[in-house]
């Protein structure tokens, strides 16, 4: 019945007819299901972001007049030494991030083998991550306070009060104290991520390795680490960009005083206490650019200095395999197409 009708080329299907067909319905469903998440994404993420970009070109308060100032806010961001000085504080948090990853990797490797009470340890290590950052801040505010928890503990261990530094006041160590709180908070979470990746390693490999005489360190170095390389790299990238935007510990514990003000704390102060919204927006965008740069730099670093963190095979292995494949191909083709394969297909692919 249908065949002759569709054979007539002049008759075009109307839009409604198309919508009633299977393909049309499928398209409709896709569009409708996508619409709401996309709408939410646009309304709560992209439009505010574009607004922020726009604000960064204005001299403005939250309410009241706005004056267009072009790039002046960006120039100020780079000229003011309090803003860029704040980025150096982030170095402490980056150092903290490295310590944190090392600890997490260590504990995860311990727990991947049979340990008594591992569920308890996992829970205890993960617990700090469940506490909200502000509460963590208050906990450590009392922990570090003069004569409180940490000082009493050290005194119990026999230290004299005069020898104990003032954890939050002494500018040589106060940033380390603060970075330690974020290490405390995130180590457990990193450990769980590592542990998850390690669980997927086939346990037969350990057995085989130990039969071959590999000790635990060898197992870690040659079996575990290569298997979870990609998650280690991911965690490192997240921690480094996270430490550039550290906010809660300095904001809650010291309010950015005594030289602990990170970039975010300064940004918050400019925007909310001095009402320099335009400047703060420009700071946010500069920070975004810095974070993107850092992430790309790290990616490239891992790609060229070490093996590609995301690949299962090492770079050398890949190269070797490709060479072998090529050699095999060449061998097969030799004879008939000897000439062309040498000149044409080169070493590119």
């Amino acid at each position: 019945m249908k065949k002759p009708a569709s054979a007539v080329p002049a008759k075009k299907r109307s839009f409604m007819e198309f919508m009633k067909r299977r393909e049309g319905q499928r398209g409709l469903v896709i569009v409708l299901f996508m619409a709401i998440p996309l709408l939410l994404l646009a309304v709560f993420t992209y439009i505010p972001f574009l607004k922020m970009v726009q604000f960064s070109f204005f001299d403005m308060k939250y309410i009241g007049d706005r004056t267009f100032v072009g790039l002046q806010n960006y120039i100020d961001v780079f000229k003011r030494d309090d803003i860029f000085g704040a980025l150096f504080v982030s170095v402490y948090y980056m150092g903290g991030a490295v310590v944190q990853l090392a600890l997490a990797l260590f504990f995860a490797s311990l727990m991947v083998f049979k340990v008594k009470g591992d569920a308890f340890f996992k829970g205890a290590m993960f617990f700090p991550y469940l506490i909200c950052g502000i509460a963590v801040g208050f906990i450590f505010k009392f922990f570090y306070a003069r004569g409180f928890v940490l000082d009493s503990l050290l005194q119990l261990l026999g230290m004299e009060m005069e020898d104990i530094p003032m954890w939050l006041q002494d500018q040589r160590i106060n940033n380390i104290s603060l970075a330690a709180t974020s290490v405390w908070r995130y180590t457990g979470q990193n450990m769980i991520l590592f542990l998850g990746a390690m669980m997927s390693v086939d346990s037969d490999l350990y057995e085989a390795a130990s039969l071959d005489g590999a000790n635990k360190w060898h197992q870690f170095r040659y079996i575990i680490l290569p298997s979870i390389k990609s998650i280690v790299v991911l965690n490192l990238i997240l921690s480094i960009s996270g430490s550039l935007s550290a906010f809660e510990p300095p904001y809650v514990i010291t309010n950015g005083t005594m030289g602990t003000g990170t970039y975010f704390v300064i940004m918050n102060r400019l925007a909310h206490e001095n009402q320099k919204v335009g400047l703060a927006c420009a700071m946010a965008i500069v920070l975004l650019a810095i974070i993107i740069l850092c992430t790309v730099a790290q990616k490239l670093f891992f790609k060229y200095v070490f093996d590609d963190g995301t690949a299962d095979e090492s770079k050398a292995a890949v190269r070797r395999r490709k060479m072998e494949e090529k050699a095999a191909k060449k061998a097969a083709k030799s004879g008939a197409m000897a000439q062309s394969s040498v000149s044409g297909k080169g070493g590119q692919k």
Partner: protein
Amino acid sequence: MKKITLKRAASLTMAVVMTGSLAACGGNGGSGKGNTEASAEPIPTIDQITVGEDYKDLEASIKVLTNRTDIVDTVYAGYAQEFMQLYPNIKVEYEAVTDYEESLTLRLTTGDWGDLCFIPTSVNKSELGDYFTPLGSYDTLDPIYNFCTEKSYNGTVYGIANGGTANGVVYNKKVWADAGITDIPRTPDEFLEDLQIIKDNTDAIPMYTNFSAGWPMGAWDAYIGIAATGNPDYMNHDIVHTKDPFAKQEDMTGPYAVYYVCYEAVARKLVEEDPASSDWESSKSRINSGEIASMVLGSWAVQQCKDAGPNADDVGYMPFPITVDGKQYAGAGGNYAFGINKQASSDNQIAAMLYLKWLIEDSTIYEDEGSIPALKGEELPDALADFDGVELLSDNPPAEGEEELFNDVNNKSEVGINNDDYPNCYLLECALYGSKTLDEVVAEWNAQWTQAQEDLGVEITQ
């Protein structure tokens, strides 16, 4: 076929409801506005009504917003009970809001927040009329109530302060007496010497900064106006038009004298050992028990320090130690001011006004909180008993056309007087680490201030 239509109808309704719920957030404000224009019963001014006689048969249920989460269900609910005995037909309900300033700023714009609230300080004077019912003209209300200037615009009053506070220094009388001090200090240097005597003769911390809470450091800014100059025009006019306002003056008055006290007390180690781990809540009971000798805070803190322990009688209040031409001054300012929701129904507005008037005139709220009463001519709180011979003044409003000028210069320069605690914290850090002298810090502030004055084209007259 029917089934499909039903399904389609159902999904269509779902879609409509979902978009509707998104749009609802924006819609409320508009509908609220429409309601008020319909009910056009005239609202009396606050001086025209007599509490206990007028509107006895008015029926309404009003909601009052407050920031005092700690006493909303006890003390404040008690006031509401008392009022409801007087007006059985009016139901008064309290709602306490944490993070009051910020959440109320957002709720105000919806128009649907309740009937009576403390006006957030973020509302500019020119915007008062958009949200709040006029309470009367400035000329009629100013002779009746204190601090009317703070919430009035173009000759109309939109808010009445819930009493006020004076600025001085909280101290423990017993500790000061035990140290052998008989006279209250009257100059910065006398004050610092007394702190030294306290340090030498007692175990108390001479002055507790409460540095780590932040705001007690910002509170030092409250003294640079009237207490330091005796000039009620200083804060809203003079300081904006002065060249280098923070520079040292020979007679040790002005802002420099205030910051001098703070800087020197820290530099001479007359404060707590580790300011970074100071704690506000416990400091109240420690000054009560005599572990702390003094704290530089507004008079509102006196009652809280008295209540924090068994030695209420030891807690005293003295004027800030600066003498201008042989006379001491203290600044007094209003607390949060009450405002009535303009968009509520007129019955609710009248009921809210009745409650407001009862609360500020007939209730015991000012004795309970130890603040300066809203009504003029009432007795000052006990806390200010030591203020004999000290003149209490309030800041005059800024000149016409310059209402925003102080805020603009202040924000632009980032000196942050009364709104940013950080520069004061910075002052303390410089004293603590000895990284900068007071003159260097003050020179930085002067430079920032001058730059802001230039950028905004402010005329320098002094």
